[in-house]
Structure formats: structure tokens, C-alpha cells
């Protein structure tokens, strides 16, 4: 390297030469350096720096940009909701267009990028993209400017980029072809308008949750000579003064004017290229994309700096299609020179294409990836035609599902119409927490893709006591069968994972407990006391055997024998899939107390069987070697499933656990670890889940909802029920007249007002708010804006806002750590609140006439008595947690109210009782206050209280009951969660 001994002086001189040289046009540098440098070694030094800059990714060492956006912030007519992506180049936020009432994505380019030349470029991107209107193009609505910020308003897309999709594995042929048709169609429209994308790559193609393909980021599109309409952006301008200072590099800006050289030494003109990081902002750039900072999707003429036209996009399109089909880059390599060499000199490895690739698709790829643009396919539309033809042809061997246009009726489908059955892809927080225990150091975002499939509204996955799992996956993981109930009764519903809708399968009336044949062609199920089967793609259902009794599971072996469990007090039986009389397979060990065998699960070897053995000791998973007849207890648990890679999963209650399993020894080969929690399970120990042979996990989440419940005279009435996907209500508080509730909900939390008379819920805050308490006049609520909400730094603290919303919130007290209000005294002069103020536990404070003083240092979760003279609170200062009462605001004495544990104190309307939680119960202690406080009696208010948090209840001010936040499990829900690479996760854990 040579510069180890470099002296500071020399460093300074080289730096000056470098900075000067890089500002020159590339063709003048050589001569300039020749003249300016003292000697050859100095010149080599400068040139190495120039080369280093040239080779560095455009976001190299760039700080993580912070737009200052946060949920709740308003930008023009947009309300920021959530962050979608961030990187050195900028941020993308989900926002709501409050004028048009739609959700949009706002792209904030990183600092300085909107100024000068690059700003013009970004603006042109917006204009060009806005002129495209195609179903497969991500819409750009406008270039917004507000509060001095520039941003691009785009269609909000939910899904994965192709880069993410292909990272795991190749995309199945028919799927890849269908997506490629959409991409071709989008690019075709752009080309028709004279626009070239120039940065087409998997990370720029989104597959939305509903399965639509969207080409994104026409950020580098330039207007070709053919498209004379937009004079703003000829490629000439692009090669102009593109460097606007080092601090402004990045995003989609080219590396610089002609500074990028190929192996052949030919300069590349600035207009042709980009860093490989252009789509950071869409969250779609994989680490691999940043590998060398240059896109491996550039056509040879782009690399050589030659003029480019739409054929550069055709090259990139070929690269994308190849990558979809093979799961590999067409032109890969670990370093810039390797990638460049591959693009310029080598053919892609055609052997990588799946065998089922139709010849016409192979030919198309060849024509897209010709090095010489003159030999290349000219019109992207031609590619679309070829692909559509290939799709219309017979489905490729090994591909059970055709994707092409099909007549649902012909396949035995009964469409349920357009009632939103959409594929959702999102990171499920629930359950992922469990992963981190298995996979130290991993952040949840890195784990398997989670998805959730929604059944049409009104259709729910069947939940019943004595039943086998209501979900099944085809061996290839591409088809989900679920027993579900809708208006039309009980059916087996089928959902091909890449298609939009779940549909009921004809002939499956009253069908439950679905399972697949090993080739995935058939779905077996129980209905009306019979074991039946139906083609997975639709068709006539046929009977296999009589199987009276509760259907408790079945498994279809490679030898076409079906092992099943029918009856709650039965062993396993076996029958040919072709039909016949079932024979008993297993024998119950009556002396050992066994009452039932259920949940049979055959390993793909057709030899090893797992099942649940039920006895008074509880459920245990047993293994049976069908050949030798050897049987062994495996572990405590039920509903065993094999997972590829040598694992079994079992459930214990609503926890799904996994362990390595050795089929030869019929025993576990490792410890049992929980992987998913909160899965729907039945009293029969059945858990509703399935694992496919290729390692996809599907499960029915235990449908916990949080309801606001009014309890009065032992009658519970649900005031408001929030679906599982939204946050639970927190700290509901009755208004002084008892007619309204204030509460916090959501992440970040906002304050809501529920009118108990009309049932209407109104959102009161929009910039963060939680833990509301009412002012004593009932006109306003005081709430906290937490410093951890990410709102503007000026806002954290206590605020008061009128509930009629007629005026904004008034700041009462800024606070920069955790805090929350307790309540106002009746005269409205004092506000009690609790906060962390320099201590490990929160303490209780009072705000009076702008002055703050401490009331208590050893307690929190306080509530003021109706007369404001007493404070009930929770403290763990003396032994365990107990509830105490102290005079307020001078806490000079205290009396213990609870015995044997207490928390979450509240006052009765008349102030004569102190409520508190003790264990699962809600208690009330009657007190007499005089010189001191004396408990005269205690009663149980609710045997089953147990809300999520002791503080999540309130007592009605006129004695009309209580309000609670109660989690409730819904029987049978309309969603199935999917973990796409479950087996892969387990394999990675093992490493």
C-alpha cells in the first residue's frame, strides 16, 4: 500500500491534488496530473484515491438520514403515520392524504438532495413518473413542498420487492412468467412514451400484498430523443454539472461525470449510470445489492458509456427474469471487476434455468441478454407476447397450479365475489419475540417472512373442541386448505398462496380437518361421518371410508394409505386412499391409562409415524416405526408435525414448540424450544397449524381481542371491541358525568373519547397522547405526550385539550422522561402526576400554579379520591406490592388498604371504597376516614378481573358499574398466519 509512512504534509498535498483532479472532466485529468504531481508515486497516490472514490458505493459512510418526520407530524395536507424505509439516501414514510383520504408514501430525499442540479433531477423524476398511468407502475402523485421540505408523493404499496422474493429461492415458473408479463407491460408503456427506466432490477419491482406487480422508481428515467414532449430532461443535462459537493452524493445521483471506468478503460458517461442504491428508500435494497455499489443489471453498452436506449431496459428485464427463474443473478460476482467482466464477456449459466422452462422462454432470455444491443430484442412488448404464450401453454411439469387465465367455474370453484380476500404480507410481531430466544442477536426483521391470509369477511376458520387442525398445507407449501364456516355453512376453503382469493371447494359441504395427498393433488377431509377426498384444483369429491366419531386427524402416506383418527376414545385406523374398510393400526394401552390416539403425522419416508397419545397424565407425542412396530414416547405435547431439516413441532397449549428429531431412534435430538406463542388450540389439545414439506408454517392465531367492557350488576356489556390488529385500549377513564370514556390506544398512542350514549369513538389527539384524565368540569382531558413517541422534542409533557376539539391542546408541563397524569383536585388547582425524575422508580408529584413538588417517592399508579383529599397508590417499598392511602397533597402518613398483595387502586364514586386488584380478583375495601384511615370491610367485586394491566379499569362516578379492558379470545377467526421460511429459520438457528 505504501502510504503507511506518509507524512501529514504529503497527505495534505495528495488531498489537494485529489480534490482538484476530481473536479476536472475525466479526459483532462491525466494531463493535469502529469503536470501537477511532483513524481510518479504522488500521482499514483492521487489516482488511487480517484479510483477509490469511483469504486465506492454512493452511500459509502453516509450518515443515516433523518428527515425529522415522526408519526403524527403534518406535512402540508399529509399526516405522517409510520415509517416505511430509511437509508442514507432518504426516508420513506407512510402518510395519509387528509384531503383525499387516501394513504400514500412520502419519499424524503436525504439532505441537500433537493437542491441544485440534483433537485432538478428529482423533480423531473416525479414529473416523468407522474405521466405514467399503468396498473403495473407505482404511481407518483405529486412533488410536494411544505415547510421548506420537498418530497415525492407516491402510491403506497404493501408487499415485497422481487429482490426479497428471490432471495429465498427461485420463483415458481408460472409465477415468474406472470410477473414478468406485468413488468414487460409496464416498461412497454414507458417506452411508448419515450421513457427509459435505466434502473430496472428486482429491488425496483414490488409484488403487492394483493399480488399485483408494480415497477417502481423511474428515478433514472430520462427522456429519450423520441419523446420530445418533456424538454426538461435530455440526457445532455444529465451529464452536466452532476457533482454538487460530496455531501450531496447519493440517492440516485450518478457517481460523477465520466469518472467510472471499465476494465477496458473506456470512460462511462455520467448519464448512463447509477449507484446500486437507488431504491434504498423503498426498503427493497438487499445487502447484496450494495455489495459493489454498482448494479449488476447494467447493459454492456451502459457500462461502456455508450449511448443507451430502451434496449438497456430489455437487458435488465432479461436479468430480472433470469433471476426470478433461477434465484441467482444472471451476472454475479463479488467485486466490481468480476461483475463487469461477467456482463461484458460471459454468458449467464443457462444450466441454472429450471428444467421446466419452456423453450420459447429460454430463447427469449437469450435474445434479451445479447451483449450487442444491435442483436438484442428491440421491443419489450415482444417479450410480453412470448411470455403470455408460454403462460397459456400447458402448466409445466411439477407445477400443480396454472396461473394463466382460467374459468373458475370449469374448475369447480364457486366464487364468493369481491369481498376482500387479500394476501397480507407483514412482519408479525407476535411470535417473533420467541424467535429471538432461539436466535440470539437476530433482529425480528431478519426472520422469516410472515404473512397472513384473510378469509372473506364473515368466513371464519373452524374452531371446535374435538377436531383436528382446521388448516393444512400442500407438500409444496403453495396451497392452503382450511376448514371454515361462512354464511353458506361449513366448507373446505382453498387458497393458492400466490393468488388473491380463498375459495370454497365444491363438494366439501360440512367438511372439516383437511389434509393433503403427498403429491398435493388431493385434499382429504372428514364430512358427515365419512372420510372423503377432492381434487385440490377442484372437481368431484369421492368417499374413501366411513369414519364416524370426532375427526381428530389424518395423514396421507406415499403408499396412498391414509392413517386417521376418528372418535375421542379411539386408536388410529388405516385405509387405502382408493377406498375400503379401515383397519385398526394402533392399540390403546388401557392399562397405562391411554384413552385416545390422535393427530397422526407420517414422515415423508412413509415409515415413521407420530401421533398424540392422550391419558390422564395429559397429551404425549409418541413415535411409531411402521415397519418394525417399535413405539416410543417422544415428548410431552400434542399435534406433532414434521418439519424438513430433521425437526418436529408439537404444541403445549397455545405454544408451538420445536425440537430436532431422530427418526431412526424415535427420539428427540435436542431440547424443546418454543417458537410461536398465541396459536389457536383446543381442549382436545389440537393446535390449528400445519407445516409443509418445504418448510412453510401456517397457523391460526389465537384471536385475542381487547374489548372495553362495562360491568354492572354482574352483567358485562361490550362497549367497543378492537380487532386484534389494533392496539388495546389503555387506562379508560369515565368523564365526571359518566357519559363518556377517555382512553389511550394505538402505537404511538392517541387519546380517544368514547361516547357511551351514542357509541361513537372520536379521536382527540393527533400528535401523540396517552393516559388521559378528565378535568373536573368534564370539558377537557389532561394527557401525556411521551418523549418516546418520537414526536417533536418540544412537545413531551402534560397537555390539556377540550374534548369538543374546538381548540388545540395547551401544554401544562414539559417533561422529558416517562410520566403520566393522575388527576385533578375538585377545585382544579392541583394536578397530581407521576414521573421518573432521576430515580429508578416513578414517584408522585403535584403541579400547582406552575410549581412542581414531590408528594411521594415510593409509590405510583396513584388515584385521587373524589374529594381530592386522599391519594390511593401502589407501592412495593415495604415487602410485596400493596395499595396504600395517604393524605393529599401532604403525604405525611399512610395506611395499608390491601392485604396479601394489591395494585391498581381506584375510588368508588362516594369515596367510601378503595378498589384494587389482588391476584385475579378485583376487590373493594370500605374505609372510614377521620383522623386516619381504617378499613372496615372488604368484598370481592369481580372474581375474574385479570385485564391486561391493573390500571386498566375505572369505577363509574355515579355508581353504575365499572369499565374494564378485557382480552377475549374469539372462537374461529378469519385469518391464517404464514411463516414463509419456517424450516429455513430452524436450520439457521442450528448453525
Amino acid at each position, binding site marked *: *500500500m505504501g502510504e503507511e509512512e*506518509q507524512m*501529514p504534509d504529503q*497527505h*495534505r498535498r495528495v*488531498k489537494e491534488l*485529489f*480534490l482538484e483532479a*476530481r473536479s476536472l472532466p475525466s479526459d483532462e485529468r491525466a494531463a493535469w496530473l502529469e503536470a501537477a504531481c511532483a513524481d510518479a508515486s504522488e500521482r*499514483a497516490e492521487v*489516482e*488511487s*484515491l*480517484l*479510483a*477509490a*472514490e*469511483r*469504486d*465506492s*458505493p454512493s*452511500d*459509502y*459512510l*453516509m*450518515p*443515516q*438520514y*433523518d428527515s425529522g418526520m415522526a408519526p403524527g407530524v403534518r406535512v402540508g395536507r399529509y399526516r405522517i403515520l409510520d*415509517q416505511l424505509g*430509511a437509508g442514507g439516501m432518504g426516508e420513506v414514510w407512510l402518510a395519509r392524504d387528509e384531503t383525499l383520504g387516501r394513504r400514500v408514501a412520502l419519499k424524503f430525499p436525504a*439532505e*441537500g438532495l433537493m437542491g441544485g442540479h440534483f433537485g432538478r433531477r428529482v423533480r423531473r423524476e416525479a414529473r416523468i413518473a407522474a405521466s405514467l398511468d399503468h396498473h403495473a407502475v407505482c404511481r407518483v402523485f405529486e412533488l410536494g413542498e411544505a415547510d421548506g421540505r420537498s418530497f415525492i408523493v407516491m402510491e403506497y404499496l404493501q408487499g415485497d420487492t422481487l429482490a426479497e422474493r428471490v432471495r429465498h429461492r427461485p420463483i415458481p415458473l408460472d409465477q415468474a412468467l406472470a410477473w414478468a408479463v406485468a413488468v414487460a407491460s409496464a416498461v412497454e408503456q414507458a417506452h411508448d412514451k419515450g421513457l427509459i427506466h435505466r434502473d430496472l432490477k428486482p429491488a425496483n419491482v414490488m409484488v403487492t400484498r394483493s399480488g399485483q406487480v408494480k415497477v417502481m422508481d423511474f428515478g433514472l428515467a430520462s427522456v429519450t430523443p423520441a419523446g420530445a414532449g418533456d424538454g426538461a430532461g435530455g440526457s445532455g443535462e444529465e451529464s452536466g454539472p452532476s457533482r454538487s*459537493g*460530496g*455531501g450531496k452524493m447519493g440517492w440516485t445521483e450518478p457517481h460523477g461525470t465520466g469518472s467510472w*471506468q471499465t*476494465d477496458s478503460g473506456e470512460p462511462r458517461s455520467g448519464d448512463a449510470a447509477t449507484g446500486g442504491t437507488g431504491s434504498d428508500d423503498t426498503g427493497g435494497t438487499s*445487502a447484496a445489492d*450494495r455489495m459493489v455499489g454498482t448494479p449488476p443489471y447494467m447493459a454492456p453498452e451502459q457500462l461502456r458509456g455508450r449511448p443507451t436506449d430502451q434496449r438497456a431496459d430489455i437487458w435488465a428485464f432479461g436479468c430480472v427474469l433470469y433471476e426470478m427463474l433461477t434465484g441467482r443473478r444472471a451476472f454475479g460476482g463479488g*467485486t*466490481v471487476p468480476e461483475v463487469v467482466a461477467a456482463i461484458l464477456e460471459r454468458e449467464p449459466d443457462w444450466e441454472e434455468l429450471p428444467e421446466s422452462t419452456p423453450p420459447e422462454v429460454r430463447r427469449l432470455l437469450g435474445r434479451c441478454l445479447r451483449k450487442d444491443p444491435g442483436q438484442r430484442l428491440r421491443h419489450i412488448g415482444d417479450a410480453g407476447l412470448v411470455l403470455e404464450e408460454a403462460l397459456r401453454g400447458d402448466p409445466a411439469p411439477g407445477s400443480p397450479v396454472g396461473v394463466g387465465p382460467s374459468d373458475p367455474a370449469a374448475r369447480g370453484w364457486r366464487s364468493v365475489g369481491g369481498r376482500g380476500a387479500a394476501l397480507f404480507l407483514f*412482519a408479525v*410481531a407476535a411470535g*417473533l*419475540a420467541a424467535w*429471538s430466544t432461539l436466535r*440470539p*442477536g437476530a*433482529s*425480528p*426483521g431478519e426472520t422469516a417472512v410472515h404473512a397472513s391470509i384473510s378469509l372473506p369477511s364473515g368466513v371464519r376458520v373452524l374452531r371446535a373442541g374435538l377436531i383436528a387442525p382446521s388448516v393444512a398445507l400442500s407438500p409444496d407449501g403453495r396451497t392452503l386448505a382450511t376448514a371454515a364456516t361462512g354464511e353458506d355453512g361449513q366448507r373446505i376453503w382453498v387458497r393458492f398462496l400466490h393468488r388473491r382469493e380463498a375459495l370454497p371447494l365444491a363438494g366439501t359441504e360440512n367438511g372439516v380437518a383437511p389434509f393433503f395427498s403427498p403429491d398435493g393433488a388431493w385434499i382429504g377431509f372428514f364430512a358427515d361421518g365419512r372420510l372423503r377426498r377432492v381434487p385440490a384444483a377442484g372437481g368431484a369429491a369421492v368417499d374413501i371410508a366411513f369414519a364416524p366419531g370426532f375427526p381428530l386427524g389424518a395423514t396421507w402416506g406415499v403408499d396412498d394409505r391414509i392413517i386417521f383418527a376418528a372418535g375421542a376414545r379411539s386408536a388410529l385406523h388405516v385405509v387405502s386412499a382408493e377406498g375400503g374398510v379401515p383397519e385398526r393400526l394402533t392399540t390403546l394401552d388401557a392399562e397405562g391409562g391411554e384413552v385416545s390416539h390422535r393427530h397422526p403425522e407420517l414422515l415423508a419416508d412413509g415409515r415413521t409415524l407420530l401421533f398424540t397419545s392422550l391419558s390422564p397424565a395429559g397429551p404425549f407425542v409418541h413415535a411409531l416405526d411402521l415397519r418394525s412396530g417399535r413405539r416410543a414416547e417422544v415428548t410431552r405435547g400434542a399435534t406433532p408435525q414434521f418439519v424438513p431439516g430433521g425437526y418436529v413441532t408439537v404444541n403445549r397449549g397455545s405454544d408451538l414448540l420445536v425440537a430436532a428429531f431422530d427418526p431412526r431412534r424415535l427420539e428427540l435430538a435436542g431440547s424443546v424450544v418454543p417458537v410461536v406463542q398465541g396459536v389457536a388450540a383446543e381442549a382436545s389439545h389440537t393446535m390449528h397449524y400445519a407445516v409443509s414439506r418445504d418448510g412453510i408454517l401456517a397457523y391460526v392465531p389465537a384471536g385475542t381481542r381487547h374489548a372495553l367492557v362495562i360491568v354492572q350488576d354482574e352483567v358485562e356489556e361490550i362497549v367497543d371491541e378492537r380487532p386484534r390488529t389494533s392496539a388495546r385500549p389503555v387506562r379508560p377513564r369515565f368523564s365526571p358525568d359518566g357519559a363518556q370514556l377517555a382512553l389511550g390506544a394505538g*402505537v404511538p398512542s392517541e387519546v380517544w373519547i368514547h361516547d357511551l350514549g351514542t357509541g361513537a369513538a372520536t379521536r382527540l389527539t393527533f400528535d401523540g397522547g396517552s393516559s388521559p384524565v378528565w378535568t373536573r368540569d368534564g370539558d377537557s382531558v389532561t394527557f401525556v405526550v411521551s*418523549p*418516546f413517541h418520537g414526536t417533536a*422534542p418540544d412537545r413531551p409533557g402534560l397537555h390539556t385539550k377540550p374534548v369538543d376539539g374546538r381548540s388545540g391542546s395547551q401544554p401544562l408541563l414539559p417533561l*422529558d*422522561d416517562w410520566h403520566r397524569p393522575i388527576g385533578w383536585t375538585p377545585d382544579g388547582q392541583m394536578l397530581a402526576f407521576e414521573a421518573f*425524575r*432521576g430515580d429508578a422508580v416513578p414517584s408522585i408529584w403535584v403541579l400547582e400554579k406552575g410549581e412542581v413538588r414531590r408528594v411521594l417517592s415510593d409509590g405510583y399508579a396513584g388515584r385521587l379520591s373524589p374529594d381530592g383529599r386522599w391519594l390511593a397508590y401502589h407501592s412495593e417499598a415495604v415487602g410485596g406490592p400493596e395499595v396504600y392511602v395517604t393524605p393529599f397533597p401532604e403525604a405525611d402518613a399512610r395506611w395499608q388498604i390491601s392485604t396479601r398483595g394489591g395494585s391498581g387502586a381506584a375510588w368508588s364514586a362516594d369515596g367510601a371504597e378503595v378498589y384494587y386488584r389482588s391476584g385475579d380478583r378485583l376487590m373493594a375495601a370500605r374505609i372510614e376516614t377521620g383522623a386516619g384511615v381504617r378499613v372496615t370491610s372488604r368484598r370481592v367485586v369481580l372474581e375474574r378481573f385479570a385485564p391486561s394491566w391493573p390500571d386498566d379499569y375505572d369505577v363509574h362516578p355515579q355508581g353504575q358499574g365499572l369499565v374494564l379492558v378485557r382480552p377475549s379470545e374469539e372462537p374461529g377467526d378469519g385469518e391464517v398466519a404464514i411463516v414463509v421460511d419456517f424450516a429455513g429459520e430452524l436450520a439457521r438457528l442450528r448453525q
Partner: protein
Amino acid sequence: MTRSTQGEITQLLTAWGAGERDAEERLFALLYEELRTIAARHRQKERAHHSLRTTALVDEAYMRLVRQHQVSWNSRGHFMAVASQAMRRILVDHARRRKAAKRGGGIPPAPLDSVVLALEDSVDLVELDVALEKLARLDPREAQVVDLRFFAGLTVPEVARALDVSRATVERDWVAARAWLHRELDGGGRADA
């Protein structure tokens, strides 16, 4: 962090600003702890998919320690200069521990994992640290600009204010440092030289 500590930091910043370089070490130690505390708390509070950013950490530390004590603007620059070094030390130490743990088998999850992983997407922090030490001997200000930009997430104008130099100077240092570091770390520019 107690209020007395906050007061101490304010005093230290003032002293440091006034040229008392002895204050720096103590300030650094305090900030180091504070940033770690903030990171740990974020780990608990933030939703899982929200990755923590160094900018947010440093900003929060600044808000908690300095802003409410009405320290003058100049001190913000001083604060950031020290905080960026503290941040770098924390992250590099963390990256080093992760590496060691990886070799040892298990890596206990830690609050800074997401930060380190995000940064290490583009660069090996331990190697960067070594290279920055070397750069600091050749051109201390260039290294400082990298600290402020990369580790504390400051913008070019903010760095200019923190170091009391012009924006153009910061941009020149930044461009030169990036090229120099890339050559140093990745052998960039050597491949076809």
C-alpha cells in the same frame, strides 16, 4: 442519570468549551454511559421493526442532558464532537464484542445490535475504527468529520457549526476522507491501478 450528573455534564461542556481539555475524558465517560442507557431503553420501547439510529440516540442524549439546561449554541457543537466520539467508541466496542461472541458461539442480543448491523451493512466498524485512528494522525479534522457524519449522523452544515469551519471545508474533508477510507478498507481503487 441523576440531575446532579446532568449538571455535571453542563459544567463539563462549558469547561471543555473554554479549553479545559481535562474535562473531555470525564465528559466522554458520562456520555458513553448515557448513550448506552438510552439505547437500552429504546430497545424496550421501540417497536421491533423500528431500527434505532445513532442520530436519534445522540439527539436524545443532547435533549436530555443539554437542551433543558439552556447551554449556549456553541456548546452543542462541543457536545456533538464528544458525543460522536463516544458513539463511535460504543459502536466499535459493540461490534468487536459481537465478533468475539460470534467466534465463541453465542451472541446475546443487545440493544445496539440493530445499529451495528445497519452500519456494518456498508463497513466493518472495527476496521473503520483502526483506519480512522490512522487518518486522525494524518488529518485530525478529516477523521473528526467522519465521526460527526457517520457516527453522530450530523449534516454537513451541522458539522460545519460543530467544528466552526465553512461548509465547503467540511465537504472537501468529507469527500477526501471517504475516498481515503475506501481505499484503506476495501482496497478500492487498487484493483485496476
